[in-house]
């Protein structure tokens, strides 16, 4: 599964299916500071994602 990080870095994880919540926890990311899209669609953290999904983690907090 391909994960696009907030800094645009990419990691690939083998674990699937997996919950978005678990992925964020493993990456040390607070779910309240990001929104998550799966294949371009917004999903809640208790979504189960599969090996062929592309997950994008988008940071929402910006100063200014």
């Amino acid at each position: 599964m391909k994960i696009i990080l907030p800094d645009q870095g990419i990691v690939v994880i083998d674990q699937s299916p997996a919950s978005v919540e678990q992925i964020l926890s493993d990456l040390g990311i607070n779910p309240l500071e990001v929104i998550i899209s799966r294949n371009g669609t917004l999903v809640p953290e208790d979504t189960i994602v599969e090996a062929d999904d592309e997950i994008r983690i988008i940071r929402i907090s910006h100063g200014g």
Partner: protein
Amino acid sequence: MGGKKHPSGSPSCCCCPEPSVIYQQHSHRHLCSTHFIHDVEERVVQGIENNAMIRPKDRIAVALSGGKDSTALLLLLARHLQRWQDVSLFAVTIDEGISGYRDKTIKAAGQVAEKVGVEHYIISFQDLFGDSLDTFLKGREEQACTVCGILRKKALSEAAKENGATRIATGHNLDDEAQSVLMNVLRGDLMRLVRDSAADTSDCFLPRIKPLAEIPEKEIASYLFIKGMFLLLPECPYTRFALRGDVRSMLSGLEHRNPGTMLRLMESKKTIGKYLAGSSGSDPLHRCRQCGDPCSGDTCQVCRLHQSLGR
């Protein structure tokens, strides 16, 4: 969380068979994109109406940085004001003069204002105060947010008055408001903690309204993402100097582990405000002896800042 799973792997919406796009901790509901958009729009309208934020014949200056909160604010206000024939909106963007940052957000602000179809005024620190923020801050970068906050507030107020505003609307969300409560506690600034910027003091300050103050930041970002209007914009280079950054991280961690923390902080502010109402603790307004602007002491913050900057 929990909830019946849709074949997509996301729990179903609590109101229809569609897959949810968000779980709202405060309502304990999963919502699909249609019901979530409707929910946010209705809560903003309820907030405006319950707090009488808008009155007939108002002309509202919307502080539009081009970031997500002000973009959502303009979209939501424009939608709501379709019902109000005699209320008008315009957008104000402050160009502080922050190299490599503000140009991109000003462009985004212009595009949103054009899409919504409102007048858009851009006012710069250079024009109003004689220099850019970058120049003001040379050698004193750690004071960035204090200096910027004071000058930006003045610039917004000037642009609003100049263009006939009766009210200023800002895009502060629930997270911003809760952070401000905690920051004022940490600074020991009780007066600022309970100050009501919406109070009608039109002979002094223009009243300020915050229609998004009850909407969590994550919901605002989600709203814009669903609307196809969430932009990845650069972060202000001075953010790393801000107390707010530390408070934001701490508070979002607390909220994640103890849902409802931010709402409870806001309730605390209201309770303290009630205890202090009418007490001698509230500062009377004076006029600045240098510029004549309303302020709480002898000299306003802008004039004090000019002095400290050696200007």
